[in-house]
């Protein structure tokens, strides 16, 4: 090395320290971004951990919530009317393949069907343009809490041994009253085919002219609901809902009408615990036709994540904070359950059968 370039030992050390400082700062910035210095940050890991059932063992290989379910396939028949609200191909008159999952809002995959208050439906509709619309809906008309943080607090309160945890939660989150009233008073049915499922979250439909419409949507059952007392349902076989829908669909398809409700200016879109007034414009956009039921075990829905942010062009998320939180948590749940495939009872019958 030519003499002119050689540095005195003192400045070599100084410069080595400088380099080390640069690298240390860069490493710290990375760790900070990853949230390691921010224990208060709500992460997808924390949300999914909070869904660990009482007893502490998550249902390995299963969804971390809505763990029990059954797959279906069929079609979505669009009547073309939805095109005035969104330019997504799924609303253009036609028939598009549908794949979905009837499920129960529980972390226990072996639960007795008759004991679970909230029922859900995951759905994926594919269109010839290569796009997909995924959604996961429940039969409750409102969500229990206003924010994802609130949902996390609710899970912690439910898991808490402190008898005051839930009353305290209800005081700090008064919005839960609407949901609690529904849970206490709404009639139960003996079939998925008789239930109504609601998106609850608000999304934005973009029409062909670029105009935007804030919407929520629901699936209304074609079958006439027959009210059954919960005490009666609790006595039925553990898998009666799955067996009932399998037998029903064997006899002919089950149908739901998709109803899109359009917000008025000023209606809150950011809070799924607040229903919109009954008089809002509602548009029937098509029919979900369920033609075949398959057990989850080897069914086509098992390894699908019904992430509500997988949307076709023409639908996008709104200022509702839930779809983002759900997407991050569902991905985490998916990552975990697919990594546990060994533990999933692939071929053996499920524990409760």
């Amino acid at each position: 090395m030519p003499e002119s370039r050689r540095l005195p030992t003192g400045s070599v050390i100084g410069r080595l320290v400088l380099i080390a400082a640069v690298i240390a700062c860069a490493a710290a910035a990375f760790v900070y971004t990853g949230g390691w210095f921010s224990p208060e940050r709500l992460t997808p890991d924390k949300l999914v951990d909070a869904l660990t059932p009482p007893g502490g063992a998550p249902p390995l290989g299963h969804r971390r919530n809505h763990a029990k379910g059954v797959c279906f396939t069929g079609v979505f028949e669009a009547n073309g009317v939805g095109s005035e609200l969104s330019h997504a191909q799924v609303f253009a008159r036609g028939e598009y393949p549908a794949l979905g999952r009837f499920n129960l809002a529980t972390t226990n995959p072996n639960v007795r069907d008759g004991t679970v208050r909230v029922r859900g439906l995951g759905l994926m509709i594919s269109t010839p343009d290569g796009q997909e619309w995924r959604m996961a809906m429940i039969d409750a008309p409102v969500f229990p809490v206003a924010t994802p943080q609130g949902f996390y607090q609710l899970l912690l309160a439910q898991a808490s041994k402190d008898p005051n945890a839930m009353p305290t939660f209800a005081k700090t989150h008064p919005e839960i009253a609407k949901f609690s009233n529904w849970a206490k008073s709404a009639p139960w049915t003996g079939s998925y085919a008789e239930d109504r499922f609601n998106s609850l979250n608000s999304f934005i439909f973009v029409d062909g002219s670029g105009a935007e419409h804030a919407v929520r949507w629901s699936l209304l059952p074609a079958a006439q609901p027959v009210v059954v007392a919960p005490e009666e349902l609790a006595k039925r076989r553990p898998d009666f809902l799955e067996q009932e829908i399998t037998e029903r669909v064997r006899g002919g398809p089950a149908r739901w009408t998709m109803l899109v409700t359009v917000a008025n200016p000023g209606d809150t879109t950011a809070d799924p615990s607040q229903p919109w007034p009954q008089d809002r414009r509602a548009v029937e956009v098509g029919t979900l036709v369920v033609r075949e039921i398959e057990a989850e075990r080897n069914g086509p829905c098992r390894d699908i994540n019904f992430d509500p942010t997988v949307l076709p062009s023409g639908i996008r998320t709104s200022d509702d904070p839930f779809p983002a939180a759900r997407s991050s948590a569902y991905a985490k749940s998916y990552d975990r359950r697919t990594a546990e495939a060994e533990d999933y009872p692939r071929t053996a019958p499920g524990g409760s059968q």
Partner: protein
Amino acid sequence: MTPIRRFTPPQRFLHWLMALCILAMLFIGVGMVSTVAPKYLTLVSIHKPLGTLILILALIRLAVRLRYRAPPLPPDLPEPLKLAAHLSHYALYALMIVMPLIGWGMLSAAAYPVELWDGVYLPSILPLSDRLHTVLWNAHYYLAFLFYVVILMHVAAALFHAIIRRDGVFEAMGPALTRDKVGPADRPVVPLQRSG
């Protein structure tokens, strides 16, 4: 004595453009998986197209590299350091190409549509498979950290050349502002006025 003393301007341009993109990607990656806030969706919607852009730029860069090669390292650089330099450069090229492919494959193996922007998708490159998804997820996760570690070592080495050895290695990749000068050594002798 070769007439090429510095990396060619396209190589230097690609190096610095990609350095920015890759650093951004690593931070976006660890940031997005640690939040449930609405910015999660925004970050994911940058991660996918930016990662794809990196794959395209990396392939172009590899072609440019094979065509124009690299200026030799200073002859007085000890052999183990030369070896470390070459190995780390191989590793960086490999990671720039493999990381986006793994990300793409991981989403394909989970049957997620890989949306780059509104209505534009990458095709699926793998069948739905829980095992493949898990292998690729782990690879994407651990290689991301390895990538960052190799980059930090690379930056430390570059600074070592720039402010301690002052042997022209940094200037060979320096942002295109300095003028090329042909000196008697294998490396350009660029005026080194900074002191301190």
